[in-house]
């Protein structure tokens, strides 16, 4: 399989985040990792990026075990994390420095900035852009190194509703145009169903995979599509138990410490 996780576990200082994660992801698929906070979905994504190491098990991409970050995996974070001292164009060409000629770099930057509709802003500095525009630059930057996988960690979580919808549409276009494999972390059920070919639902305490849904609905998906609503309710039902578990634990913790 293209992206393969074998019996992956992560423990932070005695605290087990998750264990026994087995997951196979096909090429050119849009896969969401969905779950409540604390289920370890972001940690799992960081491990695919190579920013975190697996305590147990292994992750491999195209048959190669992942040991450290590399340009075959592009990542977009919740914060755009653009470098403020560089122009939009120089941010996008940052991963290409020393590898390609100036001209090739400029062509690549122009190509991806056009894809995210920011050609006009190539000479601007990040602080001159809105949050949504900054996140689009971050997407262009991750794509510029032509990665095999695009990893996205709640990339639209910090944006307002309207901007988020616009970016959903843009991301869909980019996905169809570039045919990248995308691994997308979110806690929004609607977002996961709207975008993905496949939704992996994760539970918490301990983190684990509790369900794996293919989303068999034609794109673009409307919110009032009956299949979309059905899937939404199904996943909601699954997650209710998980969220209650977290709430109960937090309340117990509070009663123990504050009464």
């Amino acid at each position: 399989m293209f992206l393969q996780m074998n019996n992956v576990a992560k423990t932070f200082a005695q605290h087990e985040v998750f264990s026994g994660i087995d997951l196979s992801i096909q090429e050119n698929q849009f896969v969401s990792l969905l779950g409540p906070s604390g289920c370890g979905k972001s940690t799992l994504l960081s491990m695919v990026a190579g920013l975190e190491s697996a305590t147990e098990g292994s992750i491999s991409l195209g048959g190669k075990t992942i040991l450290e970050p590399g340009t075959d995996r592009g990542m977009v974070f919740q914060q755009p994390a653009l470098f403020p001292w560089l122009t939009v164009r120089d941010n996008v060409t940052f991963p290409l420095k020393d590898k390609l000629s100036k001209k090739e770099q400029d062509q690549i930057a122009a190509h991806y900035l056009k894809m995210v509709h920011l050609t006009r802003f190539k000479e601007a500095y990040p602080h001159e852009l809105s949050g949504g525009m900054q996140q689009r630059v971050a997407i262009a930057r991750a794509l510029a190194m032509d990665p095999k996988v695009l990893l996205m960690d709640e990339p639209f979580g910090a944006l307002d509703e309207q901007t988020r919808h616009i970016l959903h549409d843009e991301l869909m276009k980019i996905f169809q145009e570039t045919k990248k494999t995308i691994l997308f972390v979110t806690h929004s059920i609607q977002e996961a169903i709207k975008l993905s070919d496949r939704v992996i639902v994760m539970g918490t305490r301990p983190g684990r995979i509790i369900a794996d849904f293919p989303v068999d609905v034609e794109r673009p998906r409307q919110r009032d599509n009956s299949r979309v609503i059905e899937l939404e309710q199904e996943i909601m039902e699954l997650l209710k138990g998980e969220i209650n578990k977290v709430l109960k634990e937090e309340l117990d913790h509070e009663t123990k410490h504050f009464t």
Partner: protein
Amino acid sequence: MKLSILLKRVIFIGVLLAIWQGVYMSGYFPAIQFPPPTKVFQAMVEGFADGKLVSALLASFKHLLIGLGLAIGIGTLIGVLLGKSRQADETAGMYLIAMQSIPSIVWVPLAIMLIGLNETAVIFVVVLGGTFVMALNTRTAIHSVPPEFIKAARTMGTKGMRLFFKVEVPASLPYFMSGIRLAWAFSWRALMAGELLSNGPGLGYSLRYAMDFAQMEVVIGIIIIVGVIGSVVDQLIFSKMEKKVMRRWGLLK
């Protein structure tokens, strides 16, 4: 700047000068202790005209430039070391704060005994005045590099020296600039302390010389010059540079 603000500031200085003149005219203090503004102004003009103040200023700037340059260099090296190495920080970080809390005039006797009553001793004091604050700010600058910048850079295959020079160094520039501004301010104070007890030349030395010869108008004149230089250099050079960086880095609107 708006005209009204400028006007307020001019009026404020005018009122101060008027009070000063008033106290002088009341005759409460003997004229030798309390010269009128006009006489101070005259002393300043004369000092510049006969070149005495000019050469003192040039000497002071020479001490300052050498001392501040060394302080920024040494301070940056120490700061980067403490910022990057947890071991070094845990071992020496606390002492750095202790050293920073020592007023620079305290170093003057040590410098004179160690080096002698000369310009090198003054420069030594200036270096000590600026180094620690520079080191502390550089350390903070390195520590306050947003972790998401490092993470993002790493996912783009950046590591090692390239990560340090292309990401950590530019990302820490705003705090580094504050460090330079503070190093200047501390060095300027240390310079005056050192020169006051030195054998000249320099602005501080001229100040003590004027005191020894009971030239109150020169004493006040030099104090004014020291104050003007301090604020002008801060406002026109260092604050401007710092603000420019902060704005570009998106830390200031």
